[in-house]
C-alpha cells in the first residue's frame, strides 16, 4: 500500500497545478461556487472563456479519443484533475453533460462528419449541451417516456414535455429520447435524436426548487422538426442509445458540495448546550463518530476505486455507494447541526447562523441530492442487480404494447 502517484500521474498533477495557478482563482470559502460568485450570463461567458483555456492546455475531454482533441487517458487522470481543482473556483455545471454524456453518445452513433462538426466546439466550450431525458411521468422509470416523434418525410415532428433538464436555458444543442411507436413494447418503441435548442417550437421554463435556486428546467416541445440525419441509432433502438449515455453518467457525477463531518465537528466544538460545549455531550459524540466513520469509509473507498482506475480499470456500479451514503449523510448532518443550535437553528440570516447558514442551506438542498442522478432506491436496485447479481423485479410492463400500460390511478 502506498499513496503516492506513479511518475506519469505525478507529471500530470504538476501540469494541472501549473495550469490552475496561472488561470484559476482560489476559492474564497469552502462552499463558494462559480454560480454564487458570478451571476447568470456573466457566469456562462466566464465559464466558456475558462473552458477554452482548459481545452487549449489539453486539460479538457481527458478520456476522449485523440482524434477529437482528447487524450485517451485512463479515468485516474480525471480524478487527479478534480482533486487539484477542488481548491480553486472552477466552472461546474456547464460542460459536464456535453463532454461526459452527449459527446460519448455522438462518438458511438453519429457520422464522422457530425462528430467533427460538434466535438471541437463542445470541447472548447463554444457550444453547450443538455440532455432531454426525464419527463413528468418518467423519472426513475425513464423508459416510460411519452414525448412523441412522428415521421414526416425526411424529418421527424416532436411533441411533448421534458423536465429536470439542467442548463436547458443556456444550451445550444440537446440529445433527446422520444417515443416513435406507442404500439410497441415500452423499451422497443423509442428513438434517439440530437437537435438545436434554437429550433422553432422549443420553450424552456425554469423550475424553482425548495432551496429557492433554479438549476433545472421544464422544456416544452411543440411541432419541433428534426432532420432524420440527426437520428442516433435505429428507429425503435433509442433505449440502447440512452443506456450508452447513462453508462457515462457515472464518470460525470461529481462530489457533493456542502457541510460534511468536518463542519459539524467544528460546530460541535464551538456551540454551547445546556451542560457545556456540544462536543462534551455523550449523545453528540456518538453521532459525530457515526458520521466520521461513514465519511472516511467513502473517502477510502474512493482511494480503492482510484487504485483500480490507476490500473486502467473502468469505473463500475459499486461506485454508486459514494453518492448513496453521502447524500443521505448530508441531509442528516444538516438536520443534526441545526438541532445543536436549538431555537436559533431556524434562522437563515447569514450573519446570525454559524458558517453563513451553510447547514440551513444544506437542509433545503440535500433532498435533491438523494433524487438527482439516481434516487436512493434506484441506486440500491443497481447495486443489488449489478454488483450482488440479484434478479430483477418481476416486470408487468415488459412485453405489453406501451399504449396498453396503465399510467395513472383509474
Amino acid at each position, binding site marked *: *500500500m*502506498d*499513496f*503516492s*502517484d*506513479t511518475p506519469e*500521474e505525478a507529471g500530470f498533477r504538476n501540469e494541472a497545478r501549473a495550469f490552475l495557478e496561472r488561470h484559476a482563482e482560489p476559492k474564497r470559502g469552502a462552499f463558494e461556487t462559480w454560480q454564487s460568485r458570478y451571476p447568470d450570463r456573466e457566469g456562462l461567458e466566464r465559464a466558456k472563456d475558462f473552458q477554452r483555456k482548459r481545452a487549449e492546455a489539453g486539460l479538457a475531454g481527458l478520456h476522449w479519443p485523440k482524434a477529437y482533441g482528447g487524450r485517451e487517458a485512463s479515468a*485516474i487522470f480525471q480524478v487527479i484533475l478534480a482533486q487539484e481543482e477542488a481548491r480553486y473556483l472552477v466552472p461546474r455545471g456547464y460542460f459536464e453533460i456535453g463532454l461526459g454524456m452527449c459527446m460519448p453518445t455522438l462518438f458511438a452513433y453519429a457520422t464522422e462528419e457530425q462528430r467533427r462538426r460538434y466535438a471541437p466546439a463542445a470541447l472548447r466550450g463554444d457550444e453547450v449541451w443538455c440532455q432531454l431525458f426525464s419527463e413528468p411521468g418518467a423519472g426513475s422509470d425513464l423508459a416510460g417516456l411519452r414525448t412523441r416523434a412522428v415521421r414526416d418525410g425526411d424529418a421527424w415532428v416532436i411533441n411533448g414535455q421534458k423536465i429536470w433538464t439542467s442548463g436547458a436555458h443556456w444550451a445550444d444543442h440537446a440529445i433527446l429520447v422520444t417515443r416513435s411507436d406507442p404500439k410497441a413494447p415500452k423499451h422497443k418503441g423509442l428513438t434517439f435524436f440530437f437537435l438545436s435548442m434554437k429550433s422553432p417550437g422549443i420553450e424552456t421554463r425554469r423550475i424553482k426548487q425548495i432551496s429557492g435556486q433554479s438549476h433545472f428546467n421544464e422544456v416544452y416541445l411543440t411541432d419541433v422538426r428534426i432532420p432524420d440525419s440527426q437520428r442516433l441509432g435505429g428507429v425503435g433502438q433509442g433505449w440502447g442509445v440512452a443506456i450508452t449515455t447513462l453508462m457515462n453518467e457515472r464518470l460525470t457525477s461529481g462530489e457533493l458540495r456542502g457541510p460534511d463531518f468536518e463542519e459539524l*465537528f*467544528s460546530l460541535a*466544538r464551538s456551540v454551547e448546550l445546556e451542560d457545556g460545549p456540544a*462536543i462534551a455531550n*455523550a449523545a453528540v*459524540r*456518538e453521532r*459525530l*463518530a*457515526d458520521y*466520521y*466513520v*461513514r465519511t*472516511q*469509509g*467513502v*473517502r*477510502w*473507498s474512493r*482511494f*480503492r476505486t*482510484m*487504485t483500480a482506475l*490507476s490500473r486502467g480499470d473502468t469505473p463500475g456500479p*459499486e461506485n454508486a*455507494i459514494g453518492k*448513496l*451514503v453521502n447524500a443521505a449523510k448530508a441531509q442528516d448532518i444538516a438536520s443534526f447541526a441545526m438541532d445543536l443550535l436549538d431555537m436559533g437553528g431556524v434562522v437563515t440570516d447569514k450573519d446570525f447562523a454559524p458558517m453563513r447558514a451553510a447547514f440551513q442551506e444544506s437542509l433545503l438542498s440535500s433532498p435533491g441530492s438523494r433524487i438527482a442522478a439516481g434516487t436512493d*432506491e434506484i441506486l*440500491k*436496485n443497481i*447495486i*443489488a*442487480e449489478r*454488483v*450482488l*447479481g*440479484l*434478479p*430483477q*423485479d*418481476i416486470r408487468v410492463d415488459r412485453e405489453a404494447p406501451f399504449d396498453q400500460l396503465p399510467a395513472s390511478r383509474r
Partner: protein
Amino acid sequence: MNFDFSPDQKALRDQARKFLAEHASSVRVRRILDTDEPYDRDLWRGVAEMGWTGTAIPEAYGGAGFGHLELCVIAEELGRSVAPIPFSSTIYLAAEALLLAGSETQKRKWLPRIAGGEVVGCLALAEGPGAPAPTAVKTRVAGGRISGEKAPVADGDVADVAVVAARGEGGGVSLFLVDLGGPGVSRTVMPTVDPTRSHGRLTFDGAPAELLGPAGEGAALLERVLDRAAVLVAFEQVGGAQAALDMAREYAMGRFAFGRPIASFQAIKHKLVDMYVGVELARSNTYYAAWALSTDAPELPVAAAAARVSATEAYFHAAKENIQTHGGMGFTWEFDCHLHYRRAKLTGLGLGSVRRWKDLLITRLEARAS
C-alpha cells in the same frame, strides 16, 4: 496510488482461504460449539505449521518477519471461517504487547514459542461487568506477586501466559506478565454467547508476576496494544461480515416464496445492499488502518478507532440481517447463521464496546484538532 494489497499478499489470502475451507469448515467449528473442547487443537497446530502464528514476529524471535499487512490478510480469512482457535488472544494481544514493551529476555523467552504455536497467550483486563477503566482495576502486585481476579478473559482457561493489567506498588496501573503454569493461579471456564471461543476466570493468589514495560504506564501501553489489536480484529470482522452477506445472498437466490426467488423482492434486495454498503465502508476503513499499522503512522490511533467502530457495526448488522433473510431456518441450531451472530457480538465486545470506542475516536479527533 496503490491502496490495495500486493499480488503476494493476495496469493497468501487465497492460500489461507483454501486451507481454512478444509480445516475450519463449519463441521469443524461445530465440533467446538457442541462439545467441551475449548478450541480446535488440530487447526491450531495446522495454523502454526503454515507459519501464521509467526507472521509479524521478527525472524530474530523465531517468526517469519513479514509485516502486519500479511497478518491483516490472514485475519480476514480467520474471521470469514469463524475459526475456533486462540489466535487473536495469542497473536494480536499477547505477542503485540511483548513486541511493544517486552524486555529482550521476555521476548526471547516467549516470542519463539508463540511463533511456533507452542504457547497460547491472553490479555487479562476486565474484572466483572462494566467498563474496564484504569480506576476499575483492583488486581494488585506487591513484591513481584499478583493477587486478584480477572473475568472474563478470552482464552484465559487455556492460555500458558497472560498479560495482566494490575495496580503496582506505586498505585498506578502497569502491565505484568504471568506464567499461568506457575503457582498461585487457578482458573475456571466461563460460558459465553459464543462457545466457539473459550473464556475463563483467572484467580491470582500471590502468583509470580514480572513487569511488562515501564511501571505506572500500563494504561497508555494498553491503549497502544488495543489499537493494534483493533485493526487486526476489524479484519476478522470484515471477513465475517462478508461471509454473512454471502450466506444471505446465496439463501435468497435459492429460496422461493410467492412463486419467485425472495432475492427478487426489493425488501430483500435493499436489505442486502444495506449489508453490502456497511461491509464496503468497513473494508475501506480497515484498509486505511492496515496502512497506518504497517507503517506505524501517527494516524494509527484515529484510524484504528474508526476501523473498530465501522467493522463492529458492519459485522453485527450483517450477522443479524443474515438470520432475518433466512427466516425461521436462520433461527435453528442446524443452520450456520448463528455462528456469525455469536462471533459478531463477541468480537464487538472483546476489545471494549463500540460505545466506548466511539467516545475514544472523538477524544482523539479533538486532540488532533487542537
